[in-house]
């Protein structure tokens, strides 16, 4: 009787895993089957050579005895062939064994034509909806054109109306493609073309779901905002990935001085269309100042006129053009980009850890900053980012940060960069405690 047995099952016996028992049993049985096959083969090979001349070689078209080079990593699905593939061709089979086995027997049907009734009905509905949205997009485009051509309208009202109409048009474009499973699959595989609005939308949504939250948490916990910049709504809007050579840096992580010395690279991902020029600033707000018993700002890197668009945002600092590197060509003089070259981050011994914040600031439309002019005025010490932004009308779009403290490699980094003070150690000032005056016990019980 199965039912009473189940009812009387106690708590602990139920919480024991039955799946694992089942799986291990299956593996055990499979092992015995394969081991018997091997035993038979060895028995046969032992018996034949002494008695008779060797049998003729088997025909080449048998499945079992495939040529090792003909094994396809996408097709192998027996363990023997997989092992053979790894041994001979030194590559691993592509995806799960079950999938590889299934692919042998099924026809390759494109995803949209898979013969599942509910799925096809759903596709019909979504296709009809997409057609509606496309019609609405055309109508909206005509309306926008009409409003643009309208000369009797007040300018500010016209601008406002066009803004809202364009926003609605962008929404319609997203709504047309958001239900497409192929779009979803392409995006999840990382193959989405970020020039298209739907992929930009999906990428932005993915970034905002976790990575941006983490970044904002780190930025606020470490007080980068509001120490360096005030709190701004909807900041950051572009994702900034920081790396030093092979080392990817999590926001707020401690980075060894020798690692942060070289090969600094930003990967800026903007989620709105169009190319724009950005300015990159690396600020250290924690430079200890003993005389004033506080901390100063210092700029570790300043570069402007860096072009960024949704498909290209990789900015290695070493690829940026420094001052005095103008090419001698007559046709095109490439504007220099680096105002203050990169100074490695370091923290002297005994000083608390220092935060290093990277800011990406968008320049106004079509504006190129005069790098040479700024370079004559720009100073590393007491660099106030707020003033810099106000002066050049920049808009902060991205941020990231890391932290440095004294480690074994800092002295070497400082010497190589020509910075004095690698032998300086900060010590805490001993403060005389205030004389303790014992208060009457009556009130402070």
């Amino acid at each position, binding site marked *: 009787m199965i039912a009473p047995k*189940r009812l009387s099952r106690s708590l602990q016996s139920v*919480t024991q895993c039955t799946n694992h028992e089942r799986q*291990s049993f299956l593996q055990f049985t499979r092992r015995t089957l394969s081991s018997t096959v091997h035993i038979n083969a060895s028995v046969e090979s032992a018996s034949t050579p002494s008695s008779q001349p060797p049998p003729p070689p088997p025909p080449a078209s048998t499945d079992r005895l495939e040529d090792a080079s003909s094994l396809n990593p996408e097709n192998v699905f027996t363990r023997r062939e997989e092992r053979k593939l790894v041994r001979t061709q030194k590559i691993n089979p592509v995806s799960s064994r079950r999938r590889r086995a299934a692919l042998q027997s099924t026809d390759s049907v494109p995803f949209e034509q898979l013969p599942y009734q509910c799925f096809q009905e759903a596709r019909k509905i979504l296709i009809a909806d997409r057609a509606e949205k496309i019609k609405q997009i055309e109508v909206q485009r005509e309306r926008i054109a009409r409003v643009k051509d309208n000369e009797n309208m007040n300018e500010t009202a016209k601008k406002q109306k066009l803004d809202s109409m364009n926003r609605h048009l962008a929404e319609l474009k997203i709504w047309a493609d958001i239900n497409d499973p192929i779009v979803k699959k392409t995006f999840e595989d990382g193959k989405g073309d970020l020039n298209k609005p739907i992929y930009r939308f999906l990428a932005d949504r993915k970034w905002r779901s976790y990575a941006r939250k983490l970044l904002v948490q780190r930025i606020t916990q470490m007080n980068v905002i509001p120490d360096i910049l005030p709190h701004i709504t909807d900041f950051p809007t572009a994702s900034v990935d920081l790396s030093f050579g092979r080392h990817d840096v999590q926001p707020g992580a401690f980075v060894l001085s020798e690692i942060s010395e070289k090969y600094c690279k930003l990967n800026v991902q903007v989620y709105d269309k169009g190319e724009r020029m950005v300015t990159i600033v690396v600020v250290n707000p924690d430079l200890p100042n003993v005389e004033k018993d506080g901390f100063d700002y210092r700029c570790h890197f300043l570069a402007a006129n860096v072009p960024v668009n949704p498909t290209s945002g990789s900015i290695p600092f070493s690829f940026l053009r420094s001052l005095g590197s103008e090419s001698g060509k007559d046709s095109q003089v490439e504007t220099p980009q680096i105002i203050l070259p990169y100074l490695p981050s370091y923290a002297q011994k005994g000083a608390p850890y220092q935060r290093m914040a990277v800011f990406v600031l968008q320049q106004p439309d079509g504006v190129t900053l005069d790098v040479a002019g700024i370079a004559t005025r720009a100073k590393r010490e007491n660099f106030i980012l707020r003033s810099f932004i106000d002066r050049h009308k920049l808009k902060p779009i991205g941020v990231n940060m890391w932290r440095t403290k004294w480690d074994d490699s800092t002295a070497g980094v400082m010497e190589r960069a020509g910075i004095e003070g690698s032998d300086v150690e900060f010590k805490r000032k001993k403060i005389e405690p205030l004389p303790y005056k014992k208060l009457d016990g009556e009130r402070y019980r």
Partner: protein
Amino acid sequence: MVCTRSKERDRRCKLKVTSTEKKTLIAQQRGDSGAAAVLGMSCRERYLDRDARRHHRRLQRRDDLEDGHTHDNMKPPSTALLRAFSPLWRTNAIPFTARGCLAQQQSSFSTTEQRMARDKGKPKTDMRITLIRYHLKHPLTPRPLRFSRNRALRHWTIHRAWRLYQSKLRLSRQLELERQYNSMASACEALRLIDSHGLTAEDRSKLGEPEVSEGGKDVGRLYRIAMRKDQIWDGVPIEYARIQTESPPRDGWNHSWTR
């Protein structure tokens, strides 16, 4: 005298034993049997709680002093659960892949500090975790579905299509209701402007009839009759009517209602 005392002892120990059955379960969860073995307790003592253990030891000491033979009036604890839990009697060969399944609950569920002074050093099992695992691992619970990539995409497509269809349906129903309401409202408005001959003020001026002020008792009489709400529910306003529903009301239960 001795018999009654031993019977009383029996009764108390029996009661204590049943509560230790539960504690045995927890002890097994905690892996306490090992700790008990370290403390050098006898097999019998291990399955008693602190007071019963103390009592048992006191009895043993008294017996040793008196006779030299152990006092056997106390019944040993029931071995019903022992059979289920003792590792000696039922060995389950767990495959190495299932290591994590039998891991005992060690860290506390919440991040607030636990007051450990009372039960020193005993990791408290969280009943919530036990219950969750019980319900997940129960043989009658359906196992969680795991979809392949294409299967998941098809599921997502069907889900999106269904949600779209439902929202379109809801929207069309809402629009239909709005259309009906607006039609009724415009009909009432037209009625409001009509006099007893079915003419609006415009028609009257066209036909050359004498003008009648809108506030007159002729104009909109039928409208006013239509707007009357008496004798609909015989004194009870219709807003007080509420059909019985399966789900609870939006405003909930008014705990501070008074007559």
